[in-house]
């Protein structure tokens, strides 16, 4: 491998990193710098080494790998072009080295920016990355903004009450079973080394885990945004939560909610959930949940909240089977139905009927009363 100056590819590397960041990978200036340093230690002409070196620096979970592979291909082609252009390298090119440096700065500024303001810069970079994605972004503006203000006003105090109740219940008790020698001796210092007080401790209480599986299929459309807003709020109180949405496929959105502010989270979700407003296959999606996530996420002891109207186009036998499986693992199953709000609603559709025997609490999903009731259930379950 010939003399391949780092400056030549650095600007491409930064662009690549930004694209990855645009796709949700956790890229920081520090990581980009380490990635650049990594390139010093490998053979740049070897595609596999090149890829695995950057992969180690830029990815941080299995889900990142596919995104990475997709974008790497394109990046590699660019790098090859750079290599070929190198036919006429001259000392004047040294001037280039300043430019990438500035970009590093840019990247770090980007980091500080409020997520909402990132748009313009980010979009420019994403040109050429499947325009269909833009079409996939659903327009949420059809909701009247004044409705939202009311909901927020009503919901915020509910959440803060909930937070107080949950945290109070987590106060450590003085009647622990184990001796805490470290603290006991620290205390003893105050009394000239004589042990006066025995400090006890007890095992840390685990906060309640909440798993939300929310239907975003077409039939749910009018209430979806409303519901997601509540889930987003609840996540702030029950930090140990996992959020999924589904219609024909199941998508995990925990990380999106964790990382973004509300408005941006909503955009990202609607961009990433490909089957938004599609049909419903509850049974199939629960199967995906049970098989792919239930074990890894440690469903035992969790409160599982299913939000759906129960209009299922899939197989009810499968739904029955998967509900039973879910019931076996979960501590409590709460089903929230947006139709339950209307007075004359009867759970007669097949899907709902199949699922009801396994449901501990059946609550309405489209009024504040239902969400308040959910809050009560969750507080009761909290340690």
């Amino acid at each position, binding site marked *: 491998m010939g003399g391949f100056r780092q400056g030549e590819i650095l600007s491409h590397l930064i662009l690549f990193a930004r694209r990855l960041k645009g796709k949700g990978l*956790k890229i*920081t200036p*520090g*990581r980009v710098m*380490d990635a650049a*340093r*990594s390139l*010093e*230690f*490998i053979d740049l002409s070897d595609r*596999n*080494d090149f890829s*695995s*070196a950057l*992969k*180690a*620096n830029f*990815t*941080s*979970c*299995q889900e*990142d*790998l596919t995104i990475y592979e997709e974008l790497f291909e394109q990046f590699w082609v660019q790098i090859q072009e750079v290599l070929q252009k190198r036919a006429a390298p001259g000392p004047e090119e040294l001037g280039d080295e300043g430019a990438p440096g500035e970009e590093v700065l840019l990247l770090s500024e980007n980091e500080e920016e409020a997520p909402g303001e990132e748009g313009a810069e980010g979009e420019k970079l994403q040109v050429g990355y499947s325009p269909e994605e833009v079409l996939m972004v659903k327009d949420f503006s059809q909701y009247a903004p004044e409705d939202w203000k009311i909901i927020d006003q009503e919901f915020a105090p509910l959440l803060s009450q909930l937070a107080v109740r949950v945290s109070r219940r987590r106060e450590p008790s003085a009647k622990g079973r184990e001796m805490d*020698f*470290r603290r006991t*001796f620290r205390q003893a210092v105050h009394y000239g*080394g004589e042990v006066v007080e025995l400090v006890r401790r007890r*095992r*840390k209480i*685990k906060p309640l885990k909440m798993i939300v599986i929310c239907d975003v299929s077409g039939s749910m459309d009018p209430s979806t945004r409303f519901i997601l807003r509540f889930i987003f709020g609840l996540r702030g109180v029950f930090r140990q939560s996992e959020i999924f949405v589904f219609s024909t496929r199941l998508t995990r959105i*925990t*990380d999106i909610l964790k990382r973004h502010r509300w408005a941006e989270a909503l955009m990202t979700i609607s961009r990433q959930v490909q089957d938004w407003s599609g049909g419903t296959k509850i049974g199939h999606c629960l199967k995906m949940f049970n*098989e792919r996530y239930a*074990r*890894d*996420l*440690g469903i035992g002891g969790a409160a599982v909240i299913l939000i759906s109207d129960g209009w299922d186009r899939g197989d009810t036998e499968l739904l029955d089977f998967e509900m039973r499986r879910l019931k076996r693992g979960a501590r409590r199953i709460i089903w929230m139905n947006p139709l339950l709000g209307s007075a004359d609603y009867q759970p007669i559709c097949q899907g709902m009927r199949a699922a009801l025997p396994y449901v501990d609490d059946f609550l309405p999903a489209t009024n504040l009363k239902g969400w308040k009731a959910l809050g009560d259930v969750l507080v009761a379950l909290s340690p």
Partner: protein
Amino acid sequence: MLDTIEEIQSAMERAKYIADRAVATVLHLSMKLGKPVLVEGEAGVGKTEIAKVLAQILETRLIRLQCYEGLDVGTALYEWNYSKQILWMKQAEICQAPREAVGKEIFSPEFLIRRPLLEAIQNDSERPVVLLIDEIDRSDEEFEAFLLEVLSDFQITIPEIGTIQAEQRPHVILTSNRTRELHDALKRRCLYHWIDYPSLEKERRIVLTKVPSVGMTLVNQVCCFMQRVREREFYKRPGIAETLDWVMALMALGKEELDEGAVRETLGCIFKYHQDLKQMEEYGVEKFLSSLPPRDDLTCTQIPRA
């Protein structure tokens, strides 16, 4: 000595770890950049083994910190030996030793119980040790935050003694089974590597390396069988650890070839859950067997389709 990716890869193979180039690259970078490696993957694909082998090829010590829920600083970093301190004080009382001296003595390194993290930072080995932080996802978030601090500065402060700075940074390998997401800050500090289930060829090489006395027919059949099993839906798909167990079990039973009876008798080596055993019966053992390579096919480059 282990200055290139090739050298690391071949050294690992000599240490009986069949590593693909990607693993070697990540380890190489980790040593060059001084960054920890976070290894994730399904259970039983050899995550922990990486650290063991790394220690072996670097000819250094392996210090292991097994994480669990409720792991705290006292178990991970250091603890004073309280009972020894009390005895010492009592003894000093009887001998009427001067107070200041006793005070100094009982907070000297002699009374310190060194836990893995302290040991990794301060030790008398000539080369940097390998620190394995196993199953980090099982510890709680507080511990993760604390670990972050240790991993960024490689120094530890003990109020009674002072700050201890690592003379040589340990090579750090973290493993996770993804029972929960790790914090971004920790992930960013690390190089990431995902270990997948091995390909047929790789699995064969692993079995042949670990169990050299095994017959070719059995290896080919077992590995094909396992590849097939992993294509299906099971609660817990078997990893390489299970493959090795199974091969050894079959050899102990004197089998040179897979047959239905042998598979049924030893199914417990592959599946550890009742529901998976039941699932296997539903799929039908004979279906898996019918698609194995014939006895005389020693090349076995692909899984024959049923």
